[in-house]
C-alpha cells in the first residue's frame, strides 16, 4: 500500500469509518474539530450517520442510545468536552455499552489553552465519572499507530461491551504524517449481530433492556463484581506496550504519546554522553502494563526511572505502582501546551543519576 499524507484528526475519522463505524455524534472543540468536520462529509457518503449534537453531554448520550441500538459508534472531543461526558461514560460502563471515545487533549485546567497537553491521564485511566469502572485506553504515539489501533478499539469495545478511549495529545490530532492503510476496511454488514441490543422485539423475544440501575445493594454489588471480573480479563489479555533500548539500560524513560518521541530523542542525547537509556512506552494506559514495566525497571543495570509527560505529573502514579519501590522514580514535564525539550528530559535523567 502506498503511503498517504494525512492530518491526524482526519485520519482518525477515516480510520473509524474503515473500522466499520457508521455512526458519529460530536460537538466542535479545538484541537479536534476536523474529526466532526471530516465525518460530516464522509459519513453520509459511507451510508452512515453524522450528527452534530447540541453539547458534549448530548453527544455521549446519543452514543449511549446508538450503542444500545447495536451500532458501532464513536464520539470525539477535547479535554473540557470530555469532562462533560464523564457521567455519560459512567453510564455506558454501567450499562455495558461499547463505543469509541476520542480525546484529543489540550492544556487545562478549565478552559486552559487549545495547545496540546496530557493533563487528562487521570480522567481517562481512573474514570472521571462516578463509581467503579474502567475504559480500555489506547495512547498511540503517532498517526500510523492511531490508524492501526482503531479497528482493534472497536473490536475490543464490542468484545468486552465497554467503551474504549483513544487518548491523544493535540499534537497527534493536528500534525500530518504519511500513513498506510494496512488493514482492509470492515463492512458493518459483516459484524456479528448484538443479541442484547434494543432493536425491537418483533414479538419474538423478551424485551431487551439497556440499564445501569441496580437499586438493591446486593444486585448492584453483584453487578460491580461482574464488571470487575470483566476488567480482570481485560487486564490479563489487553496490555500493550513497546520498549526501546531498555535492555541493559541505566535510565528508563517512561512516556506515552508525543513525549515518548521526545524521550527517545533524549535517550539519543544521553547515548552520546555515554549513558545508556531506554524508553518504556505503554500503548494501553489502562490496563497499564505494570508487570512489564516492573521487569524492565528491576533489571540490575537500571539506576533510575524517569517519567516524561506533557503535564505536571499524572502517569507517574502508575509508574510508581509498577516499579513498586525497586528503583527510584522521578518526573519531568511541562504543561499547558509547552512540550518538554529532549535536553530537558535528558537533564532530568542526569539529575536522577545524581549528576
Amino acid at each position, binding site marked *: 500500500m502506498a503511503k498517504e499524507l494525512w492530518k491526524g484528526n482526519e485520519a482518525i475519522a477515516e480510520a473509524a469509518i474503515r473500522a466499520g463505524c457508521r*455512526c458519529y*455524534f460530536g460537538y466542535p472543540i479545538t484541537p479536534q474539530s476536523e474529526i466532526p468536520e471530516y465525518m460530516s462529509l464522509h459519513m453520509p457518503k459511507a451510508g452512515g*450517520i453524522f*450528527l452534530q*449534537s*447540541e*453539547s458534549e*453531554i*448530548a*453527544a455521549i*448520550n*446519543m*452514543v*449511549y*442510545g*446508538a*450503542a*444500545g*441500538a*447495536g*451500532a458501532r*459508534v464513536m464520539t470525539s472531543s477535547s479535554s473540557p468536552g470530555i469532562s462533560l461526558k464523564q*457521567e*455519560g461514560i459512567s*453510564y455506558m460502563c454501567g*450499562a455495558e455499552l461499547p463505543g469509541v471515545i476520542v480525546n484529543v487533549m489540550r492544556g487545562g485546567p478549565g478552559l486552559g489553552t487549545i495547545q496540546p497537553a496530557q493533563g487528562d491521564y487521570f480522567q481517562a485511566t481512573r474514570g472521571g465519572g462516578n463509581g467503579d469502572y474502567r475504559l480500555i485506553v489506547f495512547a498511540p504515539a503517532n498517526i500510523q499507530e492511531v490508524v492501526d489501533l482503531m479497528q482493534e478499539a472497536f473490536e475490543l469495545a464490542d468484545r468486552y461491551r465497554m467503551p474504549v478511549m483513544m487518548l491523544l495529545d493535540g499534537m497527534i490530532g493536528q500534525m500530518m504524517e504519511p500513513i498506510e492503510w494496512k488493514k482492509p476496511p470492515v463492512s458493518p454488514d459483516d459484524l456479528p449481530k448484538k443479541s442484547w441490543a*434494543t*432493536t*425491537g*422485539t*418483533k*414479538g*419474538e423475544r423478551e*424485551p*431487551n*433492556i*439497556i*440499564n*445501569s*440501575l441496580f437499586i438493591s445493594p446486593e444486585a448492584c454489588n453483584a453487578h460491580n463484581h461482574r464488571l470487575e471480573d470483566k476488567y480482570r480479563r481485560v487486564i490479563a489479555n489487553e496490555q500493550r506496550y513497546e520498549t526501546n533500548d531498555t535492555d541493559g539500560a541505566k535510565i528508563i524513560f517512561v512516556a506515552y504519546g508525543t513525549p515518548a518521541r521526545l524521550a527517545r530523542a533524549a535517550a539519543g542525547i544521553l547515548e552520546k554522553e555515554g549513558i545508556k537509556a531506554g524508553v518504556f512506552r505503554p500503548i494501553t494506559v489502562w490496563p497499564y502494563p505494570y508487570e512489564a514495566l516492573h521487569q524492565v525497571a528491576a533489571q540490575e543495570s537500571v539506576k533510575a526511572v524517569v517519567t516524561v509527560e506533557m503535564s505536571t505529573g499524572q502517569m507517574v502514579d502508575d509508574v510508581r505502582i509498577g516499579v513498586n519501590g525497586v528503583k527510584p522514580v522521578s518526573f519531568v514535564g511541562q504543561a499547558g501546551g509547552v512540550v518538554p525539550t529532549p535536553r530537558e528530559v535528558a537533564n532530568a535523567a542526569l539529575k536522577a543519576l545524581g549528576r
Partner: protein
Amino acid sequence: MAIVYQRSKGLADIETHYCPGCTHGIIHRLVAETLEELGVLGNTVGVAPVGCSVFAYDYFNCDMQEAAHGRAPAVATGIKRVLPDKVVFTYQGDGDLAAIGTGEITHAAMRGENITTVFVNNAIYGMTGGQMAPTTLVGQRATTAPLGRDKSHAGSPIRIAEMLATIDGAAYIERVTVTSPANVMRAKRAIKKAFELQIEGRGFTLIEVLSTCPTNWGLTPVKALEWLNENMIPVFPLGVYKDITKEA
C-alpha cells in the same frame, strides 16, 4: 359478556412501585395501549428517565433503554438515527425534562427528531422526595421551598408546551390530563395521534400530561385529582399548542 376493558398487552405483567393513586400508572397504560393498538410493540424502543418512572423499563412490554437524568431525548436520538424505522419514545418527568434536560428536549424539537415524548408534569420531584420542580406553582410547598415557591426568588413555572411550540421542528404538541375518565380518553387520543405522526415521519411530537403526586403533595389520590384540576390547569391550560397537520 364481552371484555370491554382489560390490562394492555403493552404492559409487562408485573406490579409497579408507584404510590397508591399516582397517575403515572394511568399514563403508562395509555402509552401501552397505543403501542398495542398501533401494532408496533415489537417495533418500538422506549427510553425511561430518571424520576419516579425510572423503572418504566420494566413496565413496558417492548425494548427499553434507561437514560441518564434529563438525557432521554439524546438517547432516543441515538436510537432513532440508527433505527429510523423503529418507533422511539421517551417518557419523562418535569424535573427530568424541564430542569436538567431542558437542552436535550429543546434540541430534539429543533432537529425535528422523529420521536414522541410523553412528558409527565406533576409539578414536583417525586422520586427524590418532593423538591421544587421548574413547574411547581407559585406558592406551592416543596421540600426545597418549605414556605412555598416564591416568585421573586425562584420565578414562575415554566410552560414547556408553549415554549416548544415556538420551534419549527415540533410537529405536534398538546397538553392533556388524566383527572377523569373523559380526560383520560382525551389524553389517549393525543398520545395516539403523536405516535401516529411519528410513524408517518412528521417530526417531533410531545404530549404534556398533567399528573398527580399524592405522596409529595400530601393529599389523598382523589383530592390530588381535584387539586390538579383547580390549581394546575389554570397555569398549564389544556389544549393543542402545535399541529403541523393543521398548518397551511
